[in-house]
């Protein structure tokens, strides 16, 4: 019967926003946190504490070469400085802190007072000291001195009031519930970068509301509910009118893409109210009635978050950190959660009926591709080892949005094949892509 229903089921739809609980729930401090020190994008922090030290909440425990800080999110004893697999599968050094139950000082005392409005260098120093990502994508990108000096002027800022993945609701909820702080943050961004264009992306249904609240500070962009209209690289290309190469960071092209959560954290840090110690995260999934958004200390484990909601990892086959389209399934619930904002829990068996079923050339992948790559051809060429033949089809334009594999009726691992192809090319073993162009 189920099979018969499947035959009649309607046309492909893109993943859209689930039912959700608008309240952001605050979690208790965990018994232990793990603060990873390496992040994607060459971000390295060096520990400033050692095993056995007592740390208090808000204390700096790691510092990058540029002065960005990572903070202890709970008070306790440093148990060990070890390594951990982070949610993004980065094997990173990490500081493990045991909670010893001591009460932390109130957050206002962790920073010394507000920063004067007209002081950009003071503001930058405060943002670094408070552990907030500086106003670009990932904090403390460990550039060499030359690249830092050569970074272009910032010409555009995109504040994302909506996440790329439809199941992640943190930005949207913060935008609604902390509207005043967001407006203040936009005003300060405008003060710090008077020449830059400033955009705020909001969900479609909030557009008129956002127009009345934020229109004086930023241009409001309405974003649809479905994943297809939210893909970040496409959105950025649409807004700034040109495409930023997939291998480049936005900041190297004078563009900042920043989430509302970090904007709010920035305002709080500049006002001296609180450093950035807590992260929001949305739990959703087909087996949950509604999506729940939580707030917890940075570095809490997946286990702490799941247990707080009465869930456990045994109930699921894939605990995915991130969203359903781009997230990474975790193999253990001991993974520390830091800058991730989504958790997508899958309970059913998602493995395809055939690990690599033959492609029937239906071409749905090609028609759905936002970068207009000839996915069906590349996909076959890689499968049969003809990576060189894919040159003229430009697989490097793929930014791995996952739509091709999402629509594939044969459930082929299309994203993985493309990733493999680009990886081989960038490694230069079979073919060389260079900054100057094809060789």
């Amino acid at each position: 019967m189920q099979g018969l229903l499947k035959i009649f089921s309607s046309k492909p739809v893109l993943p859209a926003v689930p039912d959700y609980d608008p309240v952001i729930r605050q979690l208790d401090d965990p018994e232990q946190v793990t603060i990873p020190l390496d992040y994607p994008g060459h971000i390295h922090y060096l520990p400033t504490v050692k095993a056995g030290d007592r740390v208090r909440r808000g204390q700096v425990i790691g510092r990058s070469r540029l002065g960005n800080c990572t903070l202890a999110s709970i008070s306790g004893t440093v148990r060990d400085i070890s390594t951990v697999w982070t949610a993004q599968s980065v094997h990173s050094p990490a500081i493990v802190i045991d909670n010893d139950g001591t009460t932390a000082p109130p957050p206002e005392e962790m920073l010394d007072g507000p920063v004067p409005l007209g002081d950009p260098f003071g503001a930058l120093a405060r943002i670094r000291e408070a552990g907030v990502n500086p106003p670009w994508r990932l904090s403390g990108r460990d550039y060499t001195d030359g690249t830092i000096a050569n970074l272009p002027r910032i010409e555009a800022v995109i504040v994302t009031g909506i996440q790329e993945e439809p199941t992640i609701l943190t930005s949207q909820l913060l935008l609604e519930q902390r509207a005043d702080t967001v407006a203040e943050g936009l005003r300060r961004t405008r003060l710090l970068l008077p020449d830059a264009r400033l955009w705020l992306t909001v969900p479609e249904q909030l557009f008129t509301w956002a127009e009345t609240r934020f229109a004086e500070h930023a241009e409001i962009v309405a974003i649809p509910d479905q994943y297809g209209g939210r893909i970040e690289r496409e959105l950025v290309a649409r807004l700034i009118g040109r495409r930023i190469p997939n291998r480049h960071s936005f900041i190297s092209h004078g563009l900042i893409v920043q989430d509302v959560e970090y904007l709010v954290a920035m305002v709080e840090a500049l006002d001296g109210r609180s450093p950035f110690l807590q992260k929001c995260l949305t739990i959703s999934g087909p087996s949950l009635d509604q999506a729940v958004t939580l707030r917890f200390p940075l570095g809490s484990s997946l286990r702490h978050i799941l247990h707080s909601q009465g869930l456990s990892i045994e109930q699921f086959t894939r605990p995915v950190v991130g969203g359903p389209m781009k997230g990474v399934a975790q193999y253990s619930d001991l993974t520390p959660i830091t800058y991730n904002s989504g958790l997508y829990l899958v309970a059913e068996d998602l493995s395809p009926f055939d690990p690599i079923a033959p492609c029937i050339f239906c071409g749905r992948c090609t028609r759905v591709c936002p970068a207009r790559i000839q996915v069906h051809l590349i996909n076959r060429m890689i499968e049969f080892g003809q990576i060189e033949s894919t040159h003229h089809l430009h697989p490097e334009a793929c930014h791995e949005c996952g739509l091709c594999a999402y629509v594939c009726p044969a459930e082929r691992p299309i994203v993985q094949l493309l990733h493999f192809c680009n990886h081989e090319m960038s490694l230069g073993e079979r073919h060389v892509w260079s900054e100057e162009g094809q060789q």
Partner: protein
Amino acid sequence: MKELKMYQPARPTDAGMLDVAVGPHCRIGNGLALIHQRWLLALLPAMAGSCYLFGPAALRVFGLSVCFAIALDLLAERLAPSRDLTSNWSSVTLALMLAFMLPLNAPWWLILTGCFFMVVVGKKLFGGVGGYPAQPAVLSIAILQLSWPGRMDNTGALKDMDWQVALVEPLRLLKSIGASAESHYQWTDLLLGRQVAGTADGMVLLLLLGGLFLLVLREIQWQLPAGFFIGLLTTATLLHLSDPEAFASPLFYLLSGGTVFMAFFLITDHTTSPVNRVPMFCYGILAGVLLMLIRGYSQHVDGIVYAVLLANLCSPLLDMIKPTVKGAEDV
């Protein structure tokens, strides 16, 4: 909670029950079998209509082709294993399409030969489903028509039917007596399948129903049938205007023979049709024009077989019209 030791590697038991995977973690794909089952479902109305008109004789053709095709597919899979599994139902749909185009009185050995050419030569030899350059069922019909022209005779198969209409293929009559052949047929008869054609490829209305089912499920793209009908009707109108004595009205061409079957089931085959939108449209137009030219200026009565094969061969060429890759220069 005190037992938390998150900096220690996960125990093997933790990893045992979890999938290690990267995104996307929700998919709408249901497998190849489902696609072919949908096609099968779309073919069902025409099958039912054929069984209603011709009785057990039609059922014999359908049954024999499906059985032979599955048996040959299994045998081929046993002898030369490939990823094109019999369980993906492709041989069933192909066998039915073959049966649709066979004459009602096809002997069992003709059906077996047809299935052999379809499954083993047309499909498996080229690498299974997704690999063939020409629609296997059409290829097989072409081989049969060339080898046993006397056996592939629809007029002979249906000569005993008790119908009010002329018991000869509409297009054959058109070829012999010119445009006046139109007066021997009723539109309703042509629509309802009371015309001399293959086992089921003349069931115009029911095939249209199945085609719409596939269109609604987005199993086939609208560009293909739309382009086909535009190409066919334009060419037919031009031919009709140029010589009203020899060429019938465009509607007659549309309703007679396997035109609708070709529009929704033969040129829309996933593997042999182009992938991008513009090429799909061009491919449809090309197929329509080719069909009309073959019908108008060749010895063949119903040119669907050769029109499909020729169009199939142009499909990779047409697919070279592709959109510019966004961000292609981003190296």
